[in-house]
C-alpha cells in the first residue's frame, strides 16, 4: 500500500513537469494511469507492484460466479478470515490490465467487501489480502459465456 502511494506520488511529479512544459494538458495528466499496480499488463507485474508474490491461503474466501452470462458485470466479493487484514486487492488474471480494485480497511471495518468487475474472457479471479503486513492470496475461476443474438 505504502509502496503504491509513494510510486504514485513520484509519477505524479513527473507528469506535473510535463504539464508545466505544456506537453500534455492537466486533464490528460489526470487521466493517465500513474499507478503501477493498475498500469501493469501482467499478473506478476501487478503483484510485484503491491509487494511481491503472495502465499496461498485457505483463509480467504473468493466469491465469484461459476459462470458469468455477461463479462461486463461480474459480481465478486471476498471475506478474509486472516487476523489483522488491512487490505484486499481484486485481480482478473486474463484482463489486459489484471488489477481491478484495491480496498483498505481501517481498524473497525470488517475485512469483507463486495463489488462488480469486468472480465474480458474466462479467467481466474484472484484476491490478495494483506494481514500483519504479509500478502496472501486465493482464487476462483469464472467462465464468461458468449452473449448475443441477431444484430
Amino acid at each position, binding site marked *: 500500500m505504502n509502496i*503504491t502511494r509513494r510510486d504514485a506520488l513520484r509519477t505524479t511529479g513527473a507528469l506535473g513537469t510535463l504539464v508545466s512544459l505544456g506537453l500534455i494538458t*492537466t*486533464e490528460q495528466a*489526470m*487521466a*493517465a*494511469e500513474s*499507478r503501477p499496480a*493498475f498500469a501493469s499488463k501482467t499478473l506478476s507485474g501487478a503483484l510485484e507492484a503491491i509487494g511481491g508474490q503472495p502465499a496461498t491461503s485457505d483463509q480467504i474466501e473468493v466469491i465469484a460466479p461459476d459462470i458469468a452470462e455477461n463479462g*461486463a*458485470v*461480474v*459480481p465478486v*466479493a471476498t471475506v478474509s478470515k486472516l487476523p489483522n487484514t488491512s487490505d484486499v486487492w481484486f485481480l*482478473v488474471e486474463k*484482463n*489486459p*490490465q489484471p*488489477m*481491478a*480494485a*484495491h*480496498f*483498505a*480497511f*481501517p481498524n*473497525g*471495518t*470488517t475485512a*469483507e*467487501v*463486495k*463489488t*462488480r*468487475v*469486468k472480465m474480458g474472457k474466462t479467467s481466474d479471479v484472484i484476491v490478495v489480502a494483506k494481514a500483519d503486513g504479509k500478502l496472501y492470496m486465493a482464487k476462483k475461476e469464472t467462465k464468461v459465456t458468449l452473449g448475443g443474438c441477431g444484430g
Partner: protein
Amino acid sequence: MGNPMRIRAKSANGETTVRVLMSHRMEGGQRKDANGKPIPAHHINTVTAKHNGKVVLSADWGPAVSQNPYLAFSFKGGAKGETVEINWVDNKGDSRTDTATIS
C-alpha cells in the same frame, strides 16, 4: 459533478452495513467509437467512506470496475440517525460526495 449516488446504510447488532450504487460510465479505454477512434479511459480512481468524519473504507479502482459501480461493506459501530458519507474522484478530476442517514 456526477449524478447522485444511491446509498443505503443499515445498523444491526453493533454493525453498520453500507451498500452504494454510483452513477459512472467507467469507460475502460479499450473501446473504439463509430469512427474507429479509441474512447479514452474515464473511470473512478478513488472512493472514500466516512462515518462521523472517520474513514471506514478507502478504495483505489481501475477501469475494470463495472459501469455504474456497486460497493457493499460493513464497519463496527454506527447508530440509527448518524450519517455515512461517500466520496469518489475520477481520473479526469471529477468528483462527487453524498451522505445517507443510517437506518
